[in-house]
């Protein structure tokens, strides 16, 4: 950890000002000198590990006043970016109308972390790749562009099989983002020029040749809210992991279905624990639409979801695992009582 200045932002303008004032031209967000601090459960961790070295911290927790509403309404849902994971997970209407959201949050991290962590910070959490998090390893294109990737032929059991590049195979570790991407969420971004909205699906960037660029956010920009249209009571989040609680996904699936008279009208399939970014399996979804559900269909959907997957030495198992998780999650979504 290195010395940094600390500033509390009392309103959004001040936060945006403070964050953009310090921003240098063309600096990727992950390397920006000023970083917003929400729950701190990712940021402080990475600063202690010397992975992130901001010289200015802008504490945005006072913005919770304006940015933490949980607002389900007739036409959809709006979630403030500073709402706490635990509060959203426990919200009765979220549990009823968006079980995939409630479960993705409830099954994440630990009770203590969920009490600290915010939705905005959660989607912005960074990979758990061990080589990324340990600065004594030179080779990490994400931390050290152009240095190589130690995980590629190293210990890569937790790494991604979808959305990888020859530069980086780091898994996007979060759970909640899969629910958002499945439900076609929009993310609201507040910056110097005001507020803009974009599909959540465009927020995260696959590593490609620039693994250090992780999102579409620019320094000085903050996530202020997420919004979802419609209700998705027939939705599930299934998470497979090494222990029963407090552990990242080896593979997860966020499924949302609209079934009428036994026919699937709309289907959403998103994958976690297996991809470099929150992953939407659109080809798989296409197979479901207009169909009646059976186990054979579930299998074909699962195969389609992983058609492009590439395993490496220790993580190939995630392909077969991921397929079974998708198939099982589909069965659960189809049969759930709503």
């Amino acid at each position, binding site marked *: *950890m290195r010395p940094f200045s600390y500033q509390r932002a009392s309103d959004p303008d001040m936060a945006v000002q403070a964050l953009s004032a310090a921003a240098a031209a063309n600096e990727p967000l992950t390397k920006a000198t000023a970083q917003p601090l929400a729950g701190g459960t990712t940021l402080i961790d990475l600063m202690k590990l010397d992975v992130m070295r901001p010289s200015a911290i802008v504490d945005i927790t006072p913005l919770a006043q304006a940015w933490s509403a949980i607002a389900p309404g007739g036409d959809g849902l709006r979630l403030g970016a500073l709402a706490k994971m635990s509060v959203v997970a426990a919200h009765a209407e979220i549990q009823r109308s968006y079980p995939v959201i409630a479960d993705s949050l409830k099954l994440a991290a*630990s009770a203590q972390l969920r009490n600290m962590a915010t939705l905005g910070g959660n989607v912005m959490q960074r990979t758990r790749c061990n080589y990324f998090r340990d600065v004594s390893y030179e080779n990490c294109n994400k931390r050290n562009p152009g240095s190589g990737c130690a995980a590629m032929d190293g210990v890569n059991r937790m790494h991604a099989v979808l959305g990888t590049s020859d530069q980086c195979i780091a898994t996007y570790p979060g759970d909640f983002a899969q629910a958002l991407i499945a439900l076609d969420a929009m993310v609201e971004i507040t910056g110097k020029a005001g507020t803009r909205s974009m599909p959540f699906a465009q927020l995260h960037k696959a590593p490609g040749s620039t693994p250090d660029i992780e999102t579409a956010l620019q320094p000085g920009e903050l996530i202020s809210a997420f919004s979802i249209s419609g209700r998705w009571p027939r939705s599930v989040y299934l998470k497979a992991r090494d*222990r029963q*609680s407090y552990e990242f996904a080896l*593979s997860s699936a966020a499924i949302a279905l609209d079934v009428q008279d036994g026919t699937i009208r709309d289907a959403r399939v998103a994958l976690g624990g297996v991809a470099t970014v929150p992953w939407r399996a659109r080809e798989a979804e296409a197979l479901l639409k207009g169909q009646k559900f059976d186990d054979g269909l579930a299998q074909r959907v699962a195969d389609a979801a992983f058609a492009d997957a590439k395993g490496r030495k220790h993580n190939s198992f995630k392909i077969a695992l991921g397929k079974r998780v998708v198939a099982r999650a589909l069965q659960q979504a189809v049969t759930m009582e709503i």
Partner: protein
Amino acid sequence: MGQPVPRYDAAAKVTGRATYASDMPLDNPAYAFLVTSAIAKGRIDRFELDDAKRVRGVIEIVTHENAPKLKDSKLFSNGGYAGTTIQPLKSAEIAHDGQIIAVVVAESYEAAREAANRVKVSYSAAAPSATFDSPGTTTAAAKGQNSQFKEDPKVGDFAKAFDAAEVKLTASYATPTQHHNPLELFTTSCAWTGDNLVIYEGSQYVHGLKNGVAEQLGIDADKVRVVNPYVGGGFGSRGSMTPRTAIIAAMARRLNRPIKLVPTRDQGFTITTHRAETRHEIKLGASRDGRLVALRHEGAEVSSRPDAYCVGGTKTTTRLYVCPNVDSLVSIVRADRNTPGFMRSPPEVPYLFALESALDELAVELNMDPVELRRINDATRDPIDGKPYTSRSLMACFDEAAKAFGWSQRSPQPKSISDGDWLIGYGCAATCYPTLMGPSAARVRLQRDGRTRVEIAGHEIGTGAYTVIAETAAERLGVPLEKVAVFMGDSDLPPAPVAGGSNSTASTCSAVMMVCDQIRQRLFKALMPSDTLADKAKETVGISPAPSTQAAKGDRSLDIEKAFDALGVGVVEEYGEWKPEGAPLDSFRAMHNGQVRLVGGHQMKDQIAYAFGAEFVEVRVNRFTREIRCPRLVGAFAAGRIMNPRTARSQLMGGLIWGMSSALLEATEIDERNARYVNDNLADYLVPVNADVPGVEVILLSEEDDRINPLGVKGLGELGNVGTNAAICNAIYHATGQRIRKLPVRLEDIEL
């Protein structure tokens, strides 16, 4: 004794008043932060320190170029004190990943850490050998290179018997590197007053550490004092001296200022020891009716280049069951690694995993209940040397645990039980641990009003040592428990052995009991100067030399007031040194020099002493995700006299949970290209959380053993986590029909 009294230190611990080593106040300390090596083999070409030195508050940066000179330390098993002979900061050479290569000292922890982050190192890296199968390792038999591994146990003619056996089994097993990760980090504070050094460090052996550091510094051991009234978990990691202590002590002397070191969690993975990865091949030959006729256990363990560390668990696995033809071999594989060390039940965990898994495989082969297979082969004598077990309740434990678990409802067919998404399997295994004891001294002081002070350099590593020592003194002196104060964790107190090998209760309580009896004798003599210590005492003043039976015989307790009047003093104080039967001649000298002389297990003269238990588990395997969970752990244990059922239960429960953890979660991953640890933190080195252990049941069997030590106590701290590894794999076999022989078992290992 024998009562479930609450922990002596419970209130102090839950209110945060218990002071651990790094809580000790220091006068104007400087703070140290370590820089550790990013390569496992090679040399340091150059340090760039300018950037680091510019950090405000930096006092000194020590590297091999300017480090204080220290004397070499010998390995504990070669008459020394150290857990490794790899001495950092001595030269530019790097012998393992994460070796200490520099120490930054600053006015604050934060400045030291920042400067350490700014130290730049250029290395010439060589290709290291990481582990088994890595190019460049060397392998040789343990016998002849490790002075504590004297013999590969054998008896009869294994080859011939195996050849002729009606049923044969050959199987190979593997266990991973594991790390202790006690919650208290590996901190060290050193403060000098003139020539006298005080070390505050969580240690499982204050007398060993004191003598070891004195030797490395080249000073008189009496000038060194190690203090740690509480230790935040040890599990073996604090049993022998690590290089950091003498380094910090020497730097504090040079700086003429106390230094406090708090290493990080990941540094803890490489600056102390670990459980080495092991491999095993088991061959079993049996007759159709299940009698073992041939048993061979071959084990291999990874160690460092310079040190021939090994645990050699064949000493136990060759003696557990009746078998006329036994063979064994342990070898050590040298790689570019730090020297491994003790970790809770060092030999038994890996070696019994292999044997108890193989027995389960044999039971399947024989179409026999695995409990019955153990019954048929149950031993009353050590099959290698023919010595009788002092007591052995293995089958009683199996029967009790089986009953509590509901084993009889099991259908032996694999894959035959399920519940929704979950396939269910039941498994069991034997557990055991040698009963060890070591020489120990104690001082006890009794005041007229019954207040008692017990002084002994034992260690409270969380096991309940304060509690059982207080109970022993209270009962022996006939004073209320609340009046007993116990002082431990200080090398200025009378020496006790290392808190390792589960010897502490037997050793320290035996010493305390003996010294309390010295006090009783003095009081008794004062009351009846002309009498000898005979049963006559009871008729007159209601005390006998054996007060543990007092209540049973309806005697009155010792009239302390009267005795003090007769003596004419206000305080009676006694010091004494106790050693177990069969202890070597140099025992007491060694004890004062901080060297361990444990006796027991199979090394006793005419008998063999082990504690036993049986462990049953229910495993659930998800048919879709293959996730493996363990909702039920049931263990029955017999370990002689139970000093305190509350603390005993806690040890055994923790053991069962750890055993499950070892079977399903714990492994330190090593990157074989560079021999470096990858998951060296508690987010990635998984241990169970509450949701993983919904059901744990501990059953304590009563067992009387008057042959083993005056108290009849067997150690049980390391008994609980031994059998669990095999029990879980055996249950996974039952759930899935799949035999897994490599730990930890992960969902990708399951094929349905």
